[in-house]
């Protein structure tokens, strides 16, 4: 099994308290769908809205996310899946893809000597 980080992007400020009941219902169904497709969510986190973010560039500290954009990281999870095709199938079912999107990115493991 390979491991992927799935970064969830939603329209700023991506406040989890603003999620609609419909969206929450979709989220609740999601782990079952993941399992059905042969994957497993190892761990995941939702984030506070991007208005609470603080960016550090060099020695400059600024209010707000690292990159100002219409969509911001709303959360992330680690997904275990047999391969990328399965991971992408799973990612496509994520409700975040309706109004935002997700980035699927393999976790790094140091190469063997």
């Amino acid at each position, binding site marked *: 099994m390979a491991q992927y980080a799935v970064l969830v992007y939603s329209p700023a400020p991506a406040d989890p308290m603003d999620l609609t009941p419909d969206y929450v219902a979709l989220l609740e169904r999601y782990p079952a769908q993941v399992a059905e497709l042969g994957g497993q969510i190892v761990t995941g986190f939702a984030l*506070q*809205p991007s*208005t*609470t*973010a*603080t960016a550090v560039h060099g020695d400059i*500290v*600024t*209010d*707000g996310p690292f990159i100002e954009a219409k969509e911001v990281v709303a959360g992330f999870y680690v997904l275990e899946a047999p391969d990328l095709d399965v991971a992408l199938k799973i990612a496509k079912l994520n409700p975040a893809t309706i109004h935002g999107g997700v980035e699927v990115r393999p976790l790094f493991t140091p190469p063997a000597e």
Partner: protein
Amino acid sequence: MSDRQPAAVTSTPEAGDAAPAEHAGAAAHGAAAERAVVEAHRREWAFVLAATARVAGDFDLAEECVQEAYVAALGAWARDGVPDKPGAWLTATARRKAFDVLRRRQVFRSKLPLLVEPDEAEMDEPDEDAVPDDRLRLVFTCCHPAIAREAQVALTLRLVCGVSTGDIARSFLVSEPTMAARVTRAKKKISAARIPYRVPEAAELPERLDAVLTVVHLLYTTGHTAPSGADLVRADLVERALHLTRMLLALMPDEPEVRGLLALLLLTDARRATRTDAEGRLLRLAEQDRSAWDRTAIGEGRRLVLDAFRTGRVGRYALQAAIASLHALAPSYAATDWPQIVQLYDALLTRWPSPVVALNRAVAVSTVAGPAAALADVDALAQDPRLAGYHYLPAVRADLLRQLNRPTEAAQAYRAALELADNDAEREFLTTRLAELT
């Protein structure tokens, strides 16, 4: 509890030895209480809010409780007389309200860690005589680098000075809902991101203090030359900035830059009354009536500059104040110690390499080495993209070209400055100069 002093021991001027009729006494008490509450709002707000925030755990609750305490004071002080220590009375009352709310909410444990670790001793009824002075914590939290600069300024006015959101909005020429959203968002961030309620440690203090002084200086400069609008000066902001700096100096007497900033503000503000003529037109330094400058402010500012220099740790505010003090002490524009001013600008540039400082240096150079030398400096500065859109650059250029008797180029530069200036008094000044040339 000793928070409600009997009327007999209060020392308001009205409670004199003459014994007025009962109802007249009550009315006098009411008026005295009202005055005392207004005075306490101006003088004690920061202390009361800072001490209440420590136990409330978030600024919204703290503000609510402090406001309620001020309302309660109106009635209690009229009834029982003004207490000896109004600040302590207000703090004890506000903190008690905060405790009550927290107990009711039953979220004590989850709320408290947001600011400071709860002190077991403070869990009991707060002791009004041993209220810690948390004003520095409050200031450093409001000016935390994780908060956007404009929100730092708004938070400082709201939380440290107790200015209403509507008044802050008017000072910065934005709508009240916009300013309210800015303040709310900043307060939410403090709580959600857990910006700590503490004074920075020694190692980070210089940088963090610089942010605080920048916010106060920004308040002052916004008041001193309003960026746009009809009046050149917004006196309320100037007063707030001076009051804040005095408070900071009382709380941090060993920081030479706080001293330097207070000196700079006093020395600049000493000229406030002479910066415009009776019609509100801008007067240049050379045209101002030096006999009308505030000598008391100049004297205090000068002493503070010397004190700051004596520490041997001379920062940018002390250097700017030193320049301002040379101007303030000069008998006339021509008799100003320009060579020393140029030297101070050189020292300032090594500590604060800002193109705005370099532009001011060029003005001083023009009086020492002549307008041609200064013009060369200004033309070099014009290449700096950081000065693009800065209306003083073409204004200074115009003045130098005028002195060099190059009226066509001078007129062009005045027009460029006019396109960038938004303050009415400054625009009128530029328009007049332009008219003299054409």
